[in-house]
């Protein structure tokens, strides 16, 4: 059914269609509307046979989820930013135990300075925690990915994060096609756990493992994700057959035929990138883009295939490996090992800084001239930075940095572009 609705609400509907039995909730912007929506459905009886548990922290949220999943029921939670960090220990634990929990990340920056707006620092911080990570480009895709995520998680006994850009997707009203319950039921069978806490068949879960088997346990976690490299495209194909639209998969190339420049990015910014690609293609520039949907497992082979004929690759990342540069670029470079081409890392959109078409066009043109630095901060206010560095050089007790920058800027509404 077609609906004009908020992204978060679309996700709540999608999760409800997956018939979870336990949902844990703890508020943090911009994820909150999703669990609020689900809470309402449970209270109203629309989502029957489901426990909605208001917990005291994100650490507890995921811990409750670990318990209910280990007891054999389908379990869901959602968080963002500081919340994901607060549950970090449980994030690793859930995957280490092989529990197929699905969690939405409403992507948001990590403080300090505290910032509620979108970037990918939160989910990127957990990229090696053993969860599958899928990044949605649109609200429709986010909705679809949740249905695929439960199926994938349960097939592999591996937790899945569905990452969607905070505000840009979670709070955007868009038209989405919400499938029917029978369609979802046909795609997503009831949960058959591999391990379950049951007095009829007692098992010990979470034993202490020493050097004699730890490597093997970790290898098997890696092996699971390697299998996911095959299952993710297969599930996307089956999804398309049943639901009539393409969603998910490992990567999504856009106008890459004959492209000399290819831009790689995750999430909603791909929409803007594609518009700029169209505009530049029209002007005769050989440019295309690739959206990475599955960041874990990282699709090395698919990316290599998609990028190997380009002359240059621009990786646009909404995150920063402080002291290094790119996070996504690292993987892209690995995918291209042995292939001679120019690679650029562009850090963009941190803490909600808008990524405009004008800025992207300027950036891609510079890239086309191979005039970019190895690492570029898109739309960096270099005057502001230079002034602060001068100020700090001039006085030992220079005070808090962020506050000094804001003071220098004066009262401005959230800066766009």
């Amino acid at each position, binding site marked *: 059914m077609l609906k004009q609705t908020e992204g978060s609400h679309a996700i709540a509907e999608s999760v409800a269609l997956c018939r979870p039995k336990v949902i844990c909730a703890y508020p943090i912007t911009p994820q909150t509307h999703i669990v609020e929506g689900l809470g309402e459905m449970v209270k109203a009886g629309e989502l029957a*046979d489901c426990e909605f*548990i208001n917990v005291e922290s994100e650490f507890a949220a995921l811990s*409750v989820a670990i*318990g*209910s999943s*280990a007891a054999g029921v389908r379990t869901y939670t959602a968080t963002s930013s500081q919340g994901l960090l607060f549950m970090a220990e449980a994030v690793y634990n859930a995957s280490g135990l092989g529990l197929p929990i699905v969690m939405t990340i409403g992507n948001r920056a990590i403080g300090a300075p505290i910032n509620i707006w979108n970037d990918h620092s939160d989910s990127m911080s957990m990229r090696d925690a053993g969860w599958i990570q899928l990044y949605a480009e649109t609200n429709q895709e986010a909705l679809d990915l949740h249905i695929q995520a439960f199926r994938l998680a349960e097939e592999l006994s591996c937790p899945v994060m569905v990452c969607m850009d905070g505000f840009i997707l979670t709070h955007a009203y868009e038209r989405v096609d919400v499938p029917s319950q029978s369609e979802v039921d046909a795609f997503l069978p009831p949960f058959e756990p591999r391990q379950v806490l*049951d007095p009829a068949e007692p098992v010990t879960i979470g034993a*202490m493992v020493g050097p004699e088997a730890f490597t093997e346990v970790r290898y098997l976690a890696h092996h699971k994700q390697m299998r996911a490299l095959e299952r993710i495209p297969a599930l996307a194909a089956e999804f398309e057959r049943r639901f009539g639209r393409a969603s998910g998969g490992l990567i999504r190339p856009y106008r890459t035929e004959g492209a000399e420049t290819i831009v790689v990015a995750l999430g909603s910014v791909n929409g803007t990138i594609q518009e700029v690609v169209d505009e530049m293609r029209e002007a005769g520039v050989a440019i295309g883009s690739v959206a990475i949907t599955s960041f874990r497992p990282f699709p090395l082979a698919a990316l290599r295939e998609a990028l190997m004929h380009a002359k240059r690759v621009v990786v646009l990342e909404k995150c920063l490996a402080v002291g290094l540069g790119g996070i996504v670029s690292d993987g892209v470079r690995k995918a291209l090992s042995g292939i001679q081409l120019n690679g650029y890392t562009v850090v963009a959109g941190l803490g909600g800084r808008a990524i405009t078409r004008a800025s992207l066009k300027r950036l891609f043109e510079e890239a086309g001239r191979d005039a970019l630095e190895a690492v570029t901060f898109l739309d960096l206010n270099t005057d502001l930075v230079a002034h602060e560095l001068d100020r700090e050089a001039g006085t030992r007790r220079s005070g808090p940095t962020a506050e000094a920058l804001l003071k220098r800027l004066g009262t401005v509404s959230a800066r766009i572009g």
Partner: protein
Amino acid sequence: MEMQTVRFYQTGTFTVGNRLLAPHERSVQAEAQRANALTSGHRACQGCGEALGARYAIDAAMRATGGKIVAVNATGCLEVFSTPYPETSWQIPWIHSLFGNAAAVASGVAAAMRRKGTDDVRVIAQGGDGGTTDIGFGCLSGMFERNDDVLYLCYDNEAYMNTGVQRSSATPPAARTATTPAMGPEPGNVFGTGKNVPLIAVAHQIPYVATASVANLRDLEYKVTRAMEFRGARYVHIHVPCPLGWGSAPADTIKVARAAVESGLFPLFEAVNGEIVSSTKIRRRTPTADYLRLQKRFAHLFQPGGEARLAHIQAIAERNIVKFGLEGTGA
């Protein structure tokens, strides 16, 4: 004919002889069909109070539920000594997730049981004092506050034993630990710190709270059994001496535990719905010094200059005796 006097209590121990009791009153551990939920072969130290307490507590819960128990264990000695991969001492479904989240994981298991329509399966969370009163305290309070259907068992050996005897918020004043050395003007743990989690549990007004001790195993079995009669959040805090951490003789575990109870330092009580409803009377008053002397962690108190601190500890016991009504007759 001359009458023979029946000796109900073994001299010095007050232990009730099982053969003198009606079958239904006999100890769970006396039954041939006891669950042995924590079976032999685990790697606890000799005389470990925690291993003893856990065996009695879980077997009592097993009897009370017809064997339908799931246990969630926090990281700590009990977890480590019972499950060195690929061995396990647990004969029940058991999960260890993290150090600080046992109560929350248990809430999740309980929620799942409700949804599966199998809430005759009862959920126990268990952890050491560190996992309960410190790092797991947020999750514990959350579980209490939501009144989730979980029995939480805290095995209180008054320090972080698994990591080598460091101070926790359950470490008593003056106790020497690896992080409260017996040095300086205030040797050992400082006075006036720590928290009383059983009373904090009572303040949550949950259905059932009790303290118990391995000194009184029948009482421990009774309290766990009683706890299983309630639905909702329940808490039993069990005093379990640790020979390694306390510097007591492994053979003295029960003796040490009993001295803690009989001196008034570890009051045994029960609370229902936020009200203390009973306390176990002290049967033979023991001076706190007799308790402290059995443990090397308190050795510095018996050096010259320790008198004031010894008196302070005695005063704490006296206060407990008044506060919890530990004097008088009755069991």
